[in-house]
């Protein structure tokens, strides 16, 4: 009996080892782990593929890049990158093997950069769909459309805080929760949206800012009012730090990029998509228009979306619930209590609502439902067939959308009221 059981175990163990066991062992240091993949339109071939990886050198600044790496380009911090023109992504990997001594491994490729030129040409579907099939590609990889060339982005990306590229990219993908000026879209998100019948895909925009919009000298700012979110990607008037920036959203019609949203519009997009967490907002002071009031705005509840269908098309009622604190009142007017408090709240609600309406109209006119309204609308259909026959993406153009913003002021910062600054008699 014992003999039988033993031989049974031996046989099962052998069979399972031979037939079932994992067979793709790789010595951990025998491969090179790609951290960033960049895709451009090629010159000598269809795709221009750039991969960035750790050069496995302990000390920053050691070693130079291989082909494609300009001086200091990505190599200074122990990272290196290679670029190649290839007929397909996968062939490109093997062609790169001619210059890289180790096997390229994509299991830790957390970021995929696609050039704007490629995105606008509408051949992204040719690339994304085969890519997602490959088992080493993470579906949780962050996708960015980059203004300019993906290769330049990789070259210019030099994290100044810490020297870990992967960590800085991972944390950058969490920034939407802190600022709302960018959005986090993974490969999986994009691919699902690409196939979906209830909306259009979007992608975050990355850019290389060469600080040309930062003017050191010139006539100084007067009393004009401009919101921070109105800038376009690669145009932020900043200087210093890393050259790369994540700002705004690329809007797609299927796999063709058709429009881009500014950082401010991105916030409103997040609100409608129920992805908004928080952000500092600035509005014009209702009583003293040449001054501003800054507020910390947070999401309060999930937005309420009600959809009804009439013969002209869908009617969408969306209410966005926000809450927040007062951060600064430059005019020192006592907005902290009613009746002025409700004036302030109404002003903010109106400000957000106007911007949101403008954004929705802009997208609606192009028939791009990037707000996830389709997901809510689909719930009103009994079967998938019915839903698919409705052709939401076509009908969205005719949708009537009523927006409402509900803001409630929670706190007044660390001050209950602003006391006036005493002036000398003569000054008054």
């Amino acid at each position: 009996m014992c003999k039988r059981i033993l031989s049974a175990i031996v046989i099962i163990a052998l069979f399972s080892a031979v037939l079932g066991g994992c067979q793709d062992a790789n010595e951990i240091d025998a491969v090179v782990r790609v951290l960033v993949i960049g895709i451009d339109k090629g010159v000598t071939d269809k795709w221009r593929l750039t991969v960035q990886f750790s050069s496995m050198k302990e000390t920053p600044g050691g070693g130079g890049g291989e082909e494609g790496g300009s001086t200091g380009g990505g190599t200074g911090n122990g990272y290196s990158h290679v670029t190649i023109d290839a007929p397909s992504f996968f062939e490109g990997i093997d062609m790169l093997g001619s210059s890289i001594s180790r096997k390229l491994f994509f299991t830790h490729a957390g970021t995929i950069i696609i050039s704007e030129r490629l995105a606008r040409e509408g051949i992204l579907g040719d690339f994304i769909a085969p890519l997602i099939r490959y088992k080493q590609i993470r579906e949780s990889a962050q996708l960015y459309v980059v203004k300019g060339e993906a290769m330049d982005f990789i070259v210019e990306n030099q994290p100044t805080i810490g020297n870990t590229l992967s960590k800085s990219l991972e944390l950058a993908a969490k920034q939407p929760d802190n600022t709302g000026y960018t959005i986090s879209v993974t490969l999986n998100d994009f691919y699902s949206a690409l196939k979906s019948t209830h909306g259009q895909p979007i992608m975050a925009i990355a850019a290389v800012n060469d600080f040309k919009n930062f003017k050191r000298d010139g006539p100084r700012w007067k009393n004009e009012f401009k919101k921070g979110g109105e800038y376009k990607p690669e145009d932020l008037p900043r200087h210093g730090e890393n050259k790369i920036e994540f700002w705004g959203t690329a809007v797609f019609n299927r796999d063709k990029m058709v429009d881009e949203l500014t950082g401010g519009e991105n916030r409103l997009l997040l609100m409608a998509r129920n992805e908004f967490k928080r952000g500092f907002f600035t509005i014009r002071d209702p009583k003293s228009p040449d001054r501003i009031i800054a507020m910390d705005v947070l999401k309060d509840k999930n937005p309420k979306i009600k959809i009804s269908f009439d013969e002209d098309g869908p009617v969408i009622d969306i209410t966005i619930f926000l809450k927040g604190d007062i951060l600064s009142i430059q005019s020192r007017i006592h907005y902290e209590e009613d009746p002025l408090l409700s004036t302030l709240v109404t002003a903010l609600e109106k400000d957000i609502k106007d911007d949101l309406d403008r954004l929705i109209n802009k997208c609606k006119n192009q028939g791009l439902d990037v707000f996830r309204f389709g997901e809510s609308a689909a719930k009103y259909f009994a079967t998938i067939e019915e839903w698919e026959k409705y052709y939401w993406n076509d009908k969205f153009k005719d949708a009537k959308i009523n927006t409402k913003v509900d803001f409630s002021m929670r706190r007044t910062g660390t001050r209950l009221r602003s006391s006036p600054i005493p002036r000398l008699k003569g000054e008054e």
Partner: protein
Amino acid sequence: MAFLEFIKNLLTYKEPLQTGRFELHESPGENPQGADLNIPVESGNIPGDPAQGSSTAGDSTGEGSGDSKEATEDSQNNTSNQSEDKKAGIKKSPKSLGKWNKDRKQESSRTKDLPQDLPQHTPQGSSQNQNSPQTRGSSQTQKSDAVNKNLSKNLQRMQQDFNMPENADIVIRNIKAGASTDAFILYVDGMVDKVTINESILSPLMQTDQGTESNKEPSADHILESVLSVNDIQKSTSYTEIIQKVLEGVTALFVDGLDICFLIETQGFEKRNVEQPVTERTIFGPHEAFSESLATNITLIRRIIKNKDLITETLPIGRSNNLKCAIMYMKGIVNPGLVQETKRRIQSIDTDYILGGGELNQYIEDHNLSLLPQILSTERPDRTAPLIMDGRVAILYESSPNASIVPTNFFELIYSPDDFFIRWQYGTFVRAIRYMALMLSLFLPGIYLAITQYHAEAIPTELILAIEKSRENVPFGVIFEILLMEVSFELIREAGVRVPEMVGQTLGIVGALILGQSAVAANLVSPILVIIVAITGLGNFAMPNHHLAIGVRVLRFLFILLGALMGFYGITFGIIIVAGFAVHMKSFGVPFFVPIAPKTQSNLETFIRLPLWISTIRTDSINTLNRRSAGRIVRRWKGRRGE
């Protein structure tokens, strides 16, 4: 074709329902202790009951024991006995109460037919004719075993039996009792307390004024009642018993004209004091450990359980070295079947020499191939006593500072007496730590290997880059690294046991540190691996049961191998195989993974050290006679609702 047949047999294999193994069923009532030793607990054992064979072995000069082995094999193979085959299909545990009683009645009537003078579990029973290994199995000229009235014949016999001229430490002292009667005392030098012999035996015996009438005819009663001032004296007429007792440190007194011998308790040999436990240290609670003296060990238990129902039975183990062991249990709580089975197993062992608990455990455990211990071996009386109160049987040994407790289960091997001396919250926490330690020491190197070789995507990017960078200058594969470190760690540990105490600990720690550090510096291993091996080692040291810890050390290498060959799949596979074996195991008829598999009551206690006033039921799986260990409301001062 034969191979196909073999595969077919494998696939259609069914384990026979009746395995012939002992199973601990519920007992309807208490058995008269030790009265009918041969009542089998399970009907399957009746016809070829090894217990009968082995316990009659003493009479039939060795042949019987051979039979009993065969009988055991037969009943396990389940082939020979037709009666068994008939029952095999029907009998499945547990039986109904009525059926149990019926069977039992039948069995007891059958056992009554057997000769009633079966040797009881007293030393002379098994030592008959078996004292010297060279006589085993050979035909021996039968001498009379009865003590002779003639003193010189007794003297001659004793000198002969003890191989006197050669045997230097046997002392025979001739005296004249009461100035007229010839007598001699016999003892083993070193085993006796000389003060007792001088003052309480020799001195009163050699006084001349013994009373007038006794001078003429020595009377046994007179000597017993009026002369010898020793607390424990027995009369014996059997040479075999006398020899055995003398070897245990008793002084024998032969008097001319009496056909009895006085066995006077004079044990007094050198022994170690009660000291601190070595492997099972705790912070709170008593700091006493068992020692090599059986009497001391029993006393240590008796001091904790002061109850008349705490039964201590002594049994000899080892046919030739005649070491004593004591089984202790609570009458009225313990399942009588368990006591019988324990005694049956111990008595049936036919070997010349057993040294204490470590060896006996291997003779009586259920599964000899398993890597996990099935008997709880402890050196702490305060661990033994609660388990006796819970309804277990404890086996204590002469010459071995451990107690064996049967039955046990896997989870008890993780408990430490510490758990019960501290508040339940803390107890639960440290118990959780120990489970974590078990997991780490068992799986960590294997999982590290599997993850780095097969599933690198599961490691955060920064970490894997760090690992890769640290391995950049290491020329070997991860598996070689791990084996190198694990083997060196085992070497250090094994050497640490043997290194003299003065340098032992320092050497162990420093050795490990230096080895780890310089191995990294020499680019033999990566630093992260040193951490892995260190955590694994720590986890292993955190385990309270030494035997389990060794088993885990061995199993760890299995998981390293499986992880290297097959990744997570291999580790899962290994867990299934090991868990399958473990769940299949039994410790004295009780499933090893109780109360998880099979599920019984008081499941919570396995992971949470329940508050003492909540656990009022004894361990369910061992089917004690008395289930409740505390009142329904334990803290009566608090009342039911704490008012």
